[in-house]
Structure formats: C-alpha cells, structure tokens
C-alpha cells in the first residue's frame, strides 16, 4: 500500500506533527512518500526514519495558502492508497480538497488507526467516539500529539518538482497575532481560566505560571463571552478549540459540558476550584479545592523551584 504524507509546515520549518504522521504510517506498513508544499522542510523530512521518498513541490502558488491551488498541484502526486495529513485547520481544508479531486472519502482528525484501517475519532466534540473502516483509497488527517513520532535517522531521496497553478485567493494584508503567546492547539501544557477568575486582569496570574513552564493560556467559553479582553482564539471547548496536551490545568472553571468536551482527552488534568462539587473535578486526575488567589501563588513558586 502506498502512503502519501502531506508535510505540515510551521513558518519556514517542518512542523513536528509531520514525524508523528510518519510514525503512524509506519505502523500501517507500506511505502511512505512525503509531499512538501513549497519545498518547506524537505531536508528535515528526508531525515525522518521510514520515509522512502520526499517530493518537494516548488511553485509561486505556495507563497500563500490557497487550498484550491495547492490541491490542484498536489493531487497528481498522491498515490492511490492512503493520503495522510495533519488535522490542523489548513491540513483539514487541504485534505478535503485533495479527497474531492481524487474522488475518495476523507476522514478527519483521527486519534487512532490500525493496520486493518480501523479508524478511531471523537465526534460531538468528545462526547462520543466513532470507529469506522474505509473500503478503499481514502484521505485521512491525524490529530496532533495522538501518535508516536518516528525517530530521525532516515536518508530518503528528495525529488524536486516545479509546478504552478493559478492562485485565486490573494493576500491583501497580514494582521500580526495579538500576542506572542503559544496557541492552545500547539501547546503541550495548557493553563486555562474561567469566570471564576473574577476579572480578565487576573489572567496575568495564569500568564505568570504559564511563562515558568512554557504553557499556553486558555479560557472557558464563559470567560470569553463575559470579557472582551479574552479573545475567542483562547477558547477551549466545543465552540472553541479541542485540545489534548500532556497537562491541562483548569483554574476557576466549573466544567460545563461544552468545556469538558474540548479538553477531556488531555493526558493529565489538574483542577483548581473553590467549589468542591464543581463538575470539573469529575475529569480531574488531581483536584485542589481552593481559591485561585490562594493556589496560584503557591503553584507559581513550586514550579519555579523545580
């Protein structure tokens, strides 16, 4: 079986999720080809163990994201087995376009796949789990951090292909990110605040803790809806981002069903809440019944002393 992997880029580098895609592909068996849109990360991709070939796609159309133009160039290089990408927003968009052009189904955001192509994914934002089987060729995207990364040590050949396609989505203006802070969907540790923080200014206490352990700062829907200072990009939950970091620290979050849906698959969950009956304690590995005013300074100091 041929497996074609669509490399994910992070600025001008290969995104680490690409190694996880190769790791998952290796468990399926088959010949692994990695496509690098715009040639980004071609050398790094060729050094991932298990990669047989890297196709570096060069062309003007790759200077900005246009899923229509990209998929037009990339689809002819996708084998007729499994095409695999990351379930980032752009990864899903590209996967769906490639599947449509190949005339095959796409199954998004898998958290598991076995060599019988039994696919596992969460539906209803984590309120249920679906397993399904593809009967033939298909395009799939995998959730970041759900699969073991392949190690380094490969030396695949890199084939450069010059290709062009008409771009129909033209970038007029880039708007810089409001903060330099790590995005919750990228982070391995997340500390989130809810309406229990009392005031948006108190999120500075979460930022302090986050800075010590390299965490991203998230928020519940209640906090985002209540305070303009807390942007939707920070929202974790059913109408925000679904996350699965190694460690999720929920502070002043009661644990509404929408919030739990977005974070319950985190590997470890710590909850800090003054209400001992808050539903968040039902999913927490470690619960601390305390006010954030008392618990956060202590947490900051303990983490700083590690």
């Amino acid at each position, binding site marked *: 079986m041929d497996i074609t992997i669509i490399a994910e880029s992070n600025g001008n580098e290969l995104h680490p999720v690409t190694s996880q895609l190769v790791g998952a592909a290796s468990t399926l068996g088959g010949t692994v080809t990695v496509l690098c849109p715009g040639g980004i990360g071609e050398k790094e991709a060729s050094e991932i163990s298990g990669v047989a070939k890297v196709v570096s796609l060069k062309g003007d159309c790759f200077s900005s994201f246009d899923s229509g133009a990209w998929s037009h160039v990339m689809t002819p290089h996708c084998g007729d087995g499994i095409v695999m990408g990351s379930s980032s927003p752009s990864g899903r968009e590209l996967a769906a376009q490639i599947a449509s052009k190949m005339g095959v189904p796409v199954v998004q955001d898998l958290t598991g796949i076995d060599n019988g192509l039994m696919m596992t994914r969460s539906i209803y934002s984590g309120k249920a789990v679906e397993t*399904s089987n593809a009967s033939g060729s298909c395009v799939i995207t995998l959730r970041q951090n759900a699969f073991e990364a392949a190690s380094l040590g490969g030396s695949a050949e890199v084939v450069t292909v010059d290709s062009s396609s008409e771009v129909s989505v033209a970038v007029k203006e880039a708007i810089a990110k409001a903060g330099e802070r790590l995005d919750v969907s990228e982070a391995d540790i997340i500390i989130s605040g809810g309406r229990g923080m009392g005031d948006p200014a108190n999120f500075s206490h979460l930022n302090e803790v986050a800075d010590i352990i390299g965490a991203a700062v998230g928020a519940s829907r209640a906090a985002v809806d209540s305070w303009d200072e807390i942007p939707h990009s920070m929202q974790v939950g059913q109408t925000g981002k679904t996350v699965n970091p190694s460690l999720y620290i929920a502070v002043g979050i009661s644990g509404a069903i929408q919030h739990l849906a977005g974070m319950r698959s985190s590997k470890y969950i710590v909850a800090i809440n003054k209400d001992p009956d808050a539903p968040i304690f039902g999913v927490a590995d470690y619960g601390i019944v305390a006010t954030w005013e008392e618990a956060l300074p202590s947490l900051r100091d303990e983490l700083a002393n590690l």
Partner: protein
Amino acid sequence: MTIAVLLKQVPDTTAKIAVSGGRVDQSSVAKWSTSPYDEYALEYALQLKEAGGGDLVAITCGPARSSKMLTDAAAVGVDSMLHVVADTSEMDSTQIQSILAAAIKHCGAEIILCGKQAADTNSGSTGPGVASLLGASCVGMVSEVGIEGDGFIAQRGISSGDERVVVSKPCLFTFDKGLTELRRPNVKGIMMAKKKVIESVSAGDLGVDLGESGVKINSHAPPPEKPPGQKFEGAESVPTVVAKLREEANVI
C-alpha cells in the same frame, strides 16, 4: 447575484449525547439547533445580501426535522429555502458533498457560506470539498467578509495569525466564530417565515447517484471513562500535587 448558506441541524452544544445499540441515539437528543459556526455563516450571508443585493437561499441536507432550522433562517431574512431530505448519518464525505454541490447548482448560487465544521461530526470536510466540486475558490477559517469592488474581502485565520484576502466569485467561505453579534428574529420575521414554502427534494431529484459509502461506521461508543482522580483540600496541597505531576504523571 445568488448567495447560498449551507446549514446543518445538530444536537445543541448543551445536549447530552447517549449511545444505544452502537450508534448515537438521536431520539434522546433533548434539543436540536443550527450548528454554531453555521450561524455565523448565515449572519454574514445576510450582511452580504444587504450590502450587495441579490437572493439568499438557505440549503440543508438532513432528515425531516431539519426544516425547522430553515424556517428559523427565514425569520432573520433568508429569501428561499431548499431542503434535501436525506439521512446523512451513515454517508461518507463524497456523498454529502455531491448532494450539496448539486443543490447549490440547482439554486444557481455563486457565493457560498458555511461553518468551518459541524458540531456533530467535527470534520470540516464539507465546505472545501464542495468548493472543489464546484470549481469555486475556497477561503477557510473566516471571521468576517465584505464586498470589495467586484469581489470579496475576507479575514481568515492562519497558523501565523490573521490575514485579509480578496477573492472573486465563484467562491466559498467557511466560518470560524465571527467578529459580529448574531441577529435574533423579530415577531414580524417569525410571522413572515411561517408563510414561506420550503422547497423539498431528494438527492435523486437533483440527479445525484449516491452509490455506496466508502467508509463504513463500525460503532459509536461513549468516551472512555477516566479512573477517579485524587482530590485535595486547600492551597496547602499545591506542593503535593506538583510533586505528583513530576513523579507520578511525569509531565513537568
């Protein structure tokens, strides 16, 4: 110009999801709503119509109960409604996309808006796949769209931040949470909507041959139960928890 908005009726985000006989039990869903991101698509479709004129059609593909959602859309200003009556729950992405692409062609729409993903399947395949079938430009993760010259200007989220992009029709926008408030229907709108007739068709009426689904759903199951956690009283337990995170969980 004809604008189409694609809507999907899903269990309300506050609804509990129960599993029975290996499938999510749809009969136990207490409340059905328009998928949240589709609501932003609808709002901006109304704004585009107000700014540039034309007809706005709301399209859904789903079971009979979905028609209520179309009537709700009419109450805030949608001109016409097309309901492709079908059970989509076991369909794969190619089947759903071919129905919706045919429905859009049937309405003659060249500007299409939809949510970035539905709140039930959480996939995000429909918009880009439909754009591909129609040969329309696709702009994803949109938080705002307006008319600029002969085309459109949209703000979209990409991994490095936001950017404004311009496109011409035919084009399709998939919406993230928008930068505007959603409008609510008034009494007049609700009364008018009740008089509007929903065009109801089958996939076959649109000339779509669905074929077999290429993906067979094996089962649905509740999420795995977590073993009960450890609970501590008071802020003085913070050092204990930090030590456990380091030694038991090995995550810091």
